[in-house]
């Protein structure tokens, strides 16, 4: 019985020849999308349909034995008939209604508009306009931030302090473990690599100078900034972007709450405070890692490392690091907000905006770091 049922549900066309009526096609099985999509069914049915005589309209079609037909099956049949009614057709009322609907609505898909050279030219213009929008938007955001900062200085009590402290916790405090781990490992790796090179020259003690300057001045701040750009820059963009998608930004506007003062300013402030602290924290972790590795590989005691570090690295390096970390923090927050506010209310734009925000902020961190290196080349070395 199961075997019979299986065969029965297979969609197929059976041709019979009767001497007086001519050829007649009987449809059997389930002509539904699900059944047709079974590969064996589809192949067998295609073979059946290929044997349909050329003048398929002259032959009789009997749909009544069908177990079930849906619109996809009806469409297949209609296409087999070259979208014309056969001369003789036996159907149940519902099958007829379905076929008539398919016949009524079968239409050719309007083609997509082709891309012309003029379109390409317009696209180039659109790119220029988009770049201009970015620049104008960034300048406007920075200007608004300055205005908001002035307003905050004038009336500090009305500032969004609750938001600032929340962001400080989320951006700063929750990032402590990951930045410490990454910093420590980088310190260990650097110390190992350096020690092998330095030993060739018998200049083991210089590891303190190299680690001190490179970690405090460059690697600490940049590492922390890149980690935070990936971690919190993306979060800022996504948060603001989702607020756009759910119309929260519009709701704020309607209530007369300035988004610059309530969304951008607290994030920028929290970043500007948290970033230098995180940079120092990462540097300390990296130095600890370097100290441990130097002790293990070269036998430099931590006590020696600390005293030598104070002599080898001028304090101005630390101020430079803190200063540029503040700039990095501001930059990451502003880039995050900039892309967040540009997001369109759909999921694709949200994803693209977040990616663009992270890529831009990491690139900008490295660019600005290079700029600092050139401008302050005489400081602290």
């Amino acid at each position, binding site marked *: 019985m199961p075997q019979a049922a299986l065969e029965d549900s297979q969609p197929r066309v059976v041709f019979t020849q009767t001497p007086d009526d001519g050829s007649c096609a009987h449809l059997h099985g389930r002509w539904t*999308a699900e059944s047709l999509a079974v590969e064996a069914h589809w192949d067998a049915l295609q073979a059946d349909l290929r044997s349909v005589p050329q003048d398929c309209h002259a032959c009789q079609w009997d749909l009544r034995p069908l177990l*079930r037909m849906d619109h996809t099956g009806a*469409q297949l049949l209609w296409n087999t008939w070259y979208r014309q*009614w056969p*001369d003789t057709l036996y159907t149940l009322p*519902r*099958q007829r209604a379905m076929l008539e609907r398919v016949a009524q*609505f079968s239409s050719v898909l309007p083609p997509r508009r082709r891309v012309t050279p003029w379109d390409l030219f317009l696209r180039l213009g659109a790119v220029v306009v988009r770049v201009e929008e970015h620049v104008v938007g960034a300048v406007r955001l920075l200007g608004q931030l300055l205005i908001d900062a002035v307003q905050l200085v004038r009336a500090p009590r009305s500032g969004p302090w609750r938001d600032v402290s929340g962001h400080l916790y989320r951006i700063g405090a929750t990032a402590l473990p990951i930045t410490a781990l990454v910093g420590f490992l980088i310190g260990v790796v650097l110390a190992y690599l350096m020690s092998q090179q330095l030993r060739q020259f018998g200049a083991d003690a210089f590891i303190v100078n190299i680690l001190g300057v490179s970690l405090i001045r460059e690697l600490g701040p940049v590492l922390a900034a890149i980690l935070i750009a990936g971690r919190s820059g993306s979060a800022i963009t996504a948060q603001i972007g989702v607020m756009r998608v759910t119309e929260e930004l519009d709701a704020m506007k309607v209530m007369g709450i300035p988004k610059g003062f309530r969304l951008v300013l607290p994030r920028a402030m929290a970043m500007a405070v948290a970033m230098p602290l995180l940079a120092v924290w990462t540097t300390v972790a990296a130095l600890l890692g370097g100290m441990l590795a130097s002790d293990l590989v070269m036998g430099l005691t931590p006590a020696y490392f600390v005293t030598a570090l104070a002599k080898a690295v001028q304090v101005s390096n630390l101020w430079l690091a803190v200063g540029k970390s503040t700039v990095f923090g501001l930059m990451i927050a502003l880039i995050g907000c900039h892309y967040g506010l540009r997001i369109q209310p759909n*999921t*694709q734009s949200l994803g693209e905006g977040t990616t663009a925000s992270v890529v831009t902020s990491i690139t900008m961190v490295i660019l600005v770091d290079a700029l600092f290196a050139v401008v302050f080349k005489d400081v602290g070395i």
Partner: protein
Amino acid sequence: MSPHAPPLHGSLPPEGADLAWGGPAARPVSAAPVVEISNLWSVFRTAGVDTLIHKDLNLTIQRGELLSIVGGSGSGKTVLLRQILGLETPARGSITVLGRPAAELTHAGAASRVGMLFQHGALYSAFTVLENIAFPLRELKALPEDLVRDAVMVKLQMVGLDPAHAHKMPADLSGGMIKRVALARALIMDPPLLLLDEPTAGLDPDRSDAFCALVRSLHQELGLTVVMVTHDLDTIYEISTRVAVVADKHVIVDAPPREVIAFDHPFVREFFLGGRGLRAMELLRAQPQDE
């Protein structure tokens, strides 16, 4: 059109008699209910506090019905719909959909068993209208592209949309168009059961009437079983054949609209016989009495 032989009535089994899964069933399914909910308990946990939403809720939906589920805010109408779909698991009790437990409904091939119109459409925003509607068909990975496209164009026009909209993105559509596209997507595999969550919410009265007319005609033409959650009294009176009122954590009454408004319960009085209710009732009076 060319001349046809007269359609044959009678001796053959009715179309759609094999609604259950897995081909021509061994048992007489046409008599079995499409959805059967028995002794359902739902609990919602928010912030550590358990809230009992349904308690011993029973509801049976027969084939071909157009059932409206009505209830106050927070009475768990949408939850009920999600449980029928197998998106949420009830705390206790059983839900049987098309002869199988609801939890199995979302397994592969679900699109051919049930269609769902979500409140906000839930169109895939990365796809065009055409790709959205074609998605369940294309996922079968067996049907040729031109057949899929033809089938989509038929469904698109069945829900009253112009073929020119086929290449638009969901973000470029109005609210009413999104609902129509979502309906076309829900119907692409001709499922026997269609669920609607607030189908007319967010539509203006004209469009809402047009949408009701569309659902009613599809219900008749395709022989669908339709279950909808709605607040809109016009919709309820205009298209439902039966109304189930959810209050006091269970279905208090489950009958044709005319009998439901006669039921004595504070919620029913408030909902159907308040100011808005009386205005909408004009519709019911205007309808012929022959159901």
